């Protein structure tokens, strides 16, 4: 049986094995599309048709399929610098020879080591834990008792008291400001938030702002500010719509 003439009928290719190899090497067929297992099965079928085992063909087939699989694997993992696959066949052969030779030498070296090991088999020597190196004695520098006392005094000094002022902050209830702003808005349709804050403590100002947010959330007021850090203007919401509502209600009442 001639492996190169093996007839293939694959999804990606139909024809003799030889041609497939040529097309793959010329990159006219993408190996990623080639079902290598299909090639193996086809070969096994052909092998089974024959009565005696053709060892030469098996060997050749193994070499070719192995090469094909290596190429395919390299193609599938392109991150790896494509080495052999990128090279011309002659260069690839040279590279492969170099690698094989390197491995063979290492194998020879391993053989040398094995032989050495057997001739040195009768060398017995002491193996123990690493010896303890003598620890250099650490001597203290001469000390002045007064200096030591000074250091201890520093350590013994009372630590500065921690300020607890922030824990005594009194926050007025938000409701207080809610009422205040609502009252304000019944008298005036709009007011300047910043001027209302005059004379208030920092904590009170914060609560006043919370109250403002609360009113806005309840849609009782609208807030505007011309620019960042500009005065915040607060106005009653729906002045007009409220008026419209009133009118609608009157109209409804009339029509009813």
């Amino acid at each position, binding site marked *: 049986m001639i492996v190169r003439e093996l007839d293939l009928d694959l999804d990606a290719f139909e024809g003799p094995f030889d041609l497939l190899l040529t097309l793959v090497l010329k990159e006219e067929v993408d190996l990623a599309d080639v079902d290598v297992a299909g090639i193996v099965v086809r070969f096994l079928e052909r092998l089974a048709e024959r009565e005696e085992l053709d060892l030469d063909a098996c060997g050749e087939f193994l070499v070719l399929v192995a090469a094909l699989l290596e190429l395919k694997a390299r193609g599938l993992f392109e991150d790896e610098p494509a080495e052999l696959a990128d090279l011309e066949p002659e260069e690839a052969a040279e590279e492969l020879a170099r690698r094989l030779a390197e*491995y063979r*030498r*290492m194998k*020879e*070296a391993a053989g040398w080591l094995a032989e050495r090991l057997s001739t040195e088999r009768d060398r017995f020597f*002491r193996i123990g834990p690493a010896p303890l190196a003598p620890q250099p004695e650490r001597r203290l520098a001469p000390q002045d008792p007064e200096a030591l006392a000074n250091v201890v005094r520093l350590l013994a000094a009372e630590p500065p008291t921690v300020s607890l002022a922030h824990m005594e902050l009194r926050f007025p209830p938000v409701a207080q400001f809610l009422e205040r702003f609502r009252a304000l808005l019944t008298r005036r349709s709009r007011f300047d938030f910043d001027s209302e804050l005059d004379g208030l403590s920092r904590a009170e100002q914060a609560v006043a702002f919370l109250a403002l947010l609360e009113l806005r959330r309840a849609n009782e007021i609208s807030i505007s500010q011309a620019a960042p850090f500009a005065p915040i203007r607060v106005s009653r919401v729906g002045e007009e719509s409220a008026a419209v509502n009133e009118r609608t209600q009157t109209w409804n009442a009339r029509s009813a």
Partner: protein
Amino acid sequence: MERPLRLVTANPLDQLARTIEALLVVANAPLPVEELIAATEDDQERVEMALGLLAERYHEGRSGIVLESVAGGWAFRASRAAAEACGRLFERPVQRGLSQASLETLAIIAYLGPVTRPEIARIRGVAADSAVAGLTERGLITEAGREDGAHGGAVKYKTTPMFERVFGLESLSELPRLDDLPGDVDDLRERLHAVAEQRSA
């Protein structure tokens, strides 16, 4: 019978030799000459002369203890004649059951080290993880920094003094030159070229 008293003239070199002898008995790894000089607080020439004296005394066939220069230092070992008896009493776990894969990995590290596991795998064509782990456990190889010096690089391995000792090498330079090992490169090259020609034809 009582020996007649005799005047012993103190031979300083002999005294030094005795001190070195004591140091070598205490040590569990070969002691380099420099360490012997530091411990005896003597000079190099005299230490080397004393070592020569000891080497003559502790010689294969003369004594049960043999002084040898190994792994970059001096150490005592059992004489080969006593090996069988030693074997009945002690194991040599470091050497026992070194597989072909381990020996190949060891050879690569000995010749090309410091070398990383991926490099070993590239040469052998299979992952070297278990062989490297086994050799490390036996104390024949050890880590020798990382690639690129940073923390991200692969760990590099080199052989230990224990390797040289187990294989009876004074140093790694005693390994046969790689070029002297047959690689059959020409034969391989010819065969591969033939295949390449056929394929590209």
